[in-house]
């Protein structure tokens, strides 16, 4: 071995060579993602062609859309005057001209602030539930929101919602007094029976009495004036808010050990779920008067809300039952071994976990419910699709289809898509809490 340097061994590393152009940047991305195999290349070209066909037809129609026209004839004149004659153009004038009708239906225009304010109250009320980081004082708004929204939308004397709120007050006071002085069971019975008696016999006289002493109120708006997206939102949100607690109760009843209660819950849920909503809506329209005492009739919108609520609650019950079944048995046994009674264990141990599991299903049910509010058009309510046919029936806009469908579809898409995203956000957040 000598010290002569071995000249053929490199002493320092070579600098890195740039990868071949086909393996970097956009070229690589395109090769990997779009043309990795003949089949893939074919699919890519097919999809690009499909996109081209749709865009080349719909794009100009959308972009050349006429936004300021008072009638279809006027709109077509503008298109004929300005267009190149080759492309058609959308008449979005119908949306700007009939915007208020599409959103509020036939609600009196000077009172538009009321539904808007009701929506704000609702949003403020729901915000502490949706985002736990908000101050807990907002729950006061949450408690007041249902009656406040009801009063803002329908109007009338303020004493009517106040007397209903008083009924709840009676219930709370009765529960507290009986619980301290008599027994827990008496307290529960009292908290249910006394408010019912109050609403049946005292609420009406109290409301009218107060109204005759201090007439405080806002203009009454009949349900027939409700329409457009406002109607969808009113039906959808009230059904969502009421169906969740009902659904929880039904799910608990279906999983209960008490045979009669379980059977009733099963029959209720299966019958409701087995029959399409549209049949239930026709039942509300045609048959409800048969089932009620002779001579009594009440508002169609209210009947629809009740029907949609019952319908949704059966679906919610099944979703929550899935959540209850998915909980490990140890949770139930652990709650029992702590000596908690049924309601305590449900409230403190089981339901918080089961509801967490069922959130995606619950939100999906709500999305379906909101989409299903369009079905009320068949029993003569003016939801957005009903308003659209009403607009189409006027001489100004006779024969307009696509623009209205597009607008209504996009509005529904935005609301349903954002609900879906919120459910994904919740799912992710709750999953993190576990790991």
């Amino acid at each position, binding site marked *: 071995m000598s010290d002569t340097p071995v000249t053929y061994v490199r002493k320092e590393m070579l600098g890195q060579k740039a990868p071949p152009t086909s393996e970097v940047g956009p070229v690589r991305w395109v090769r990997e*993602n779009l043309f990795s195999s003949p089949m*893939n290349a074919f*699919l890519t070209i097919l999809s690009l062609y499909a996109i081209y066909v749709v865009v080349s037809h719909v794009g100009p129609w959308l972009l050349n859309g006429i936004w300021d026209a008072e009638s279809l004839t006027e709109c077509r004149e503008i298109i004929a005057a300005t267009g190149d004659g080759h492309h058609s153009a959308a008449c979005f004038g119908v949306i700007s001209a009939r915007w208020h009708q599409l959103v509020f239906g036939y609600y009196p225009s000077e009172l538009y602030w009321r539904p808007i304010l009701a929506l704000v109250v609702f949003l403020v009320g729901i915000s502490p539930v949706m985002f736990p980081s908000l101050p807990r004082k907002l729950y006061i708004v949450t408690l007041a929101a249902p009656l406040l929204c009801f009063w803002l939308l329908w109007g009338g004397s303020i004493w009517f919602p106040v007397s209903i709120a008083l009924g709840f007050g009676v219930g709370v006071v009765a529960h507290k007094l009986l619980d301290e002085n008599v027994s827990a069971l008496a307290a529960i019975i009292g908290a249910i029976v006394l408010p019912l008696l109050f609403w049946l016999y005292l609420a009406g006289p109290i409301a009218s009495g107060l109204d005759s002493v201090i007439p405080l109120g806002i203009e009454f708006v009949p349900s027939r004036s409700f329409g457009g997206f406002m109607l969808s939102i009113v039906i959808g949100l009230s059904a969502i808010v009421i169906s969740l607690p009902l659904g929880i109760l039904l799910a608990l009843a279906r999983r209960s050990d008490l045979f009669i209660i379980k059977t009733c819950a099963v029959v209720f849920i299966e019958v409701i779920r*087995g029959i399409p909503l*549209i049949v239930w809506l026709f039942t509300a329209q045609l048959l409800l008067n*048969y089932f009620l005492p002779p001579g009594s009739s009440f508002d169609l919108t209210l009947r629809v809300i009740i029907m949609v609520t019952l319908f949704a609650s059966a679906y919610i019950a099944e979703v929550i039952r899935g959540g209850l079944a998915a909980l490990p048995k140890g949770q139930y046994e652990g709650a029992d071994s702590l000596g908690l009674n049924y309601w305590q264990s449900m409230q403190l141990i089981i339901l918080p976990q089961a509801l967490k599991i069922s959130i995606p299903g619950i939100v999906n049910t709500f999305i379906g419910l909101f989409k299903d509010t369009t079905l009320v058009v068949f029993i003569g309510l003016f939801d957005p*699709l009903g308003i659209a046919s009403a607009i189409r029936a006027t001489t100004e806009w006779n024969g307009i289809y696509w623009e209205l469908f597009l607008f209504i579809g996009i509005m*529904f898409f935005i609301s349903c898509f954002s609900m879906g995203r919120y459910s994904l956000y919740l799912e992710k957040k709750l999953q993190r809490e576990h790991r």
Partner: protein
Amino acid sequence: MSTLTDPPKPGFRLSQLIYDTRYRSITIQVIALVLIVGALWWLVNNTVNNLNALGKDFNFGFLSSAAGYDINQTLIEYNNQMSHGRAAMVGILNTLLVAFMGCVSALVIGVFVGVLRLSKNWVVSRLMAVYVEGFRNVPLLIWILLIGAVMSESMPQPRDFRGEDATTSMILGDSVAVTNRGIWIPRIGFTNSISGEEAVAPIEGATPVASGGADWLLVLGTFALSLIAMRFVRMRADKIQHATGERPKTWYQLMGLFFVPVGIVLFALGAQIVTPYLKGFNFTEGTHLRNSLIALWVALSLYTGAFIAEIVRAGILAVSKGQSEAAAALGLRPNRTMNLVILPQALRVIIPPLISQFLNLTKNSSLAIAVGYMDVRATLGGITINQTGRELEGMLLMGAFYLALSLLISGGMNYYNRSTQLAER
């Protein structure tokens, strides 16, 4: 042992009904039963009073009286002199028809889209995501109305097909006509029909053909027998494989069983393709798919297909990669891997929600009202109720039909679930 306390007296005190958990459940149930029976009695009592006040009775006799209205799409023989019951039957069959067609095409669309959404191809997977989100988040009713409007507003009129300067023409080798009054497709007629129907020449001078239910029953029956025979061939192959380790070649037997018997029956019946043609103001012959059926069918399949795509995607993602790798390590070829390892596991995840989507599709077919398709809602729950004034009976029957259908399907699903459930500890 004198320190033992006396056992509690076996006597029964009234307060035990409330405070003793053994008896409390009975108390609660009795109260619930009384309340429910009371509520039901109240409802029935009100109904009876209301019916009396209106001078109506409760009977289903109207089902046998003459309907007096026409139905534009009938799968069984019907005319307006037949009974309301027959009209309801026609409606039920129409509901089942669109539900069945919708389920098949929604499944095909859903499987394709679900697989393509998992594709590595960026454009394709995005496109499929747009489709799925677009259809899932917009009410079905809007899609039905939209597709109905496309069919009736932007398709050519039959007269555009006429004459030398026709602005449009039939597609697929002059066999399918797409018009604003619906789509005409070729139908199959039989020259030696066994149905007893009178054979009519589709065009003057052509061979007379007829096509009745009996012919189709024969064809489908033969096909079903072929399928059963194919199953026996496969079972025999399995048995031989178990015994000897060699799997006999069966593909030619299977192909033969699939095609030959049906082919012979079709030939014996003298099957002929009858294409539609323009006559007068409209197309004639061939099978007429009405706009109402097309709009409902396409909208239902695209809408449900989007939901099925998500189910299929979830099902495929649920089978872990180790399964296919393990199958490959055992030496299974790709198609056997798919059939024996991947699919059985994916299907266990896919099938229950898939069936509930089929159920939803069937119930959603009641939206036929939007385009005037004559389903059970339109006949029994629509015109019959309006003509006879029997809301209560009509709605009850319609509800019973939908309920029976749902319970039947979900019963089948429960049976399937039990038979494929993993045997757990």
